[in-house]
């Protein structure tokens, strides 16, 4: 799957992306401005409650997205436990989970096609430096070439498996990098032949 947008349709999918982003920015600023445990707890409960609009599976998926935080959370909590500042450690953990979960919620409920116009609007002041058409082309090319490159990597892995019972490991890297550079050259040539990137 090439996007983190949730397939579960929630009421938030229909809200304007710009508004959601602005709300997220405000929410995160507030989170980092306060140390009060009840306030942080309420914020985390609010984020969890918002997840519930999408049903239990949606909530479970949101919780799964927080998993990469665990190692950091464990280290920080143990550190504060050792220094006898359990409450301070708890506040940090709650703030962190609330901020990350809220941001993930926006990502899960906003389609790429809704996000791009916001980016376009934000990038408009940069127009003299960076023509919007060129930025749009660059984004489109990256999105298009992610599956192409992962196919290439799968090919290289199969070719390696045909020759050796060992795991390819880092030996995948040079051929994959070469393939990416060659593809990039071909695309650049094709673009130039058709009049350039505009």
């Amino acid at each position, binding site marked *: *799957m*090439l*996007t*983190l*947008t949730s397939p579960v349709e929630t009421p938030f999918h229909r809200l304007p992306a710009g508004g959601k982003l602005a709300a*997220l920015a405000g929410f*995160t600023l507030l989170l980092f401005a306060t140390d009060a445990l009840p306030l942080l707890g309420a914020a985390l409960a609010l984020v969890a409650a918002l997840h519930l609009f999408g049903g239990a599976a949606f909530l479970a998926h949101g919780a799964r*997205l*927080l998993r*990469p*935080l665990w190692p*950091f959370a464990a*280290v*920080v909590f143990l*550190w504060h436990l050792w220094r006898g500042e359990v409450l*301070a450690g708890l*506040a*940090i953990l709650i703030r*962190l989970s609330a*901020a*990350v*979960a*809220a*941001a*993930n919620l*926006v*990502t*899960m409920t*906003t389609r*790429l096609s809704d*996000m*791009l116009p916001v*980016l376009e609007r934000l990038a408009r002041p940069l127009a003299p430096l960076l023509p919007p058409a060129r930025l749009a082309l*660059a*984004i489109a090319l*990256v*999105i298009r070439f*992610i599956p192409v490159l992962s196919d290439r990597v799968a090919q290289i892995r199969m070719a390696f498996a045909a020759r050796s019972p060992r795991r390819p490991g*880092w030996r995948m*890297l*040079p051929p994959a*990098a*070469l393939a990416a*550079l*060659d593809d990039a*050259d071909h695309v650049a040539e094709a673009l130039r032949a058709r009049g350039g990137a505009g």
Partner: protein
Amino acid sequence: MLCGTILGAKRGAFAVLLFLLLVALGLPLLSGGRGGLGVFAGPSVGFLLGFPVAAFVAGWVMERTTLPPLTAAMAGAVIGGIGVLYPFGIAGMALVLDLSLTEASYLAFAFLPGDLVKAVLAGLVTQAIARARPGALLSRG
């Protein structure tokens, strides 16, 4: 690291910026299929924001030395990908996790062995590219 050592300072930094933009838009491009706005609120935000600068410095080192590609790329990867990147990452962790800078630096030590291995790999891959496609090594135009 590789972005800078192969593409050079400017192109490498722009490539990483574009990559971060797409991560923020919600594509799961980071290691472990992570992505979305959540990672910019998490503890590794400093590392993410430091990536373009690190790629720039790695590319700059690669462009300015006359060492052979292997050692130049390894040096670039260590200077850019560790020397320049870690201060960003440490500041980010200190801010998000509410630690002092010293405490955050201890935490960063956990990443050091892996990143040293990656720097050696970046050197090896850059050397392989230099041999197979000398013209594609834009950092050595």
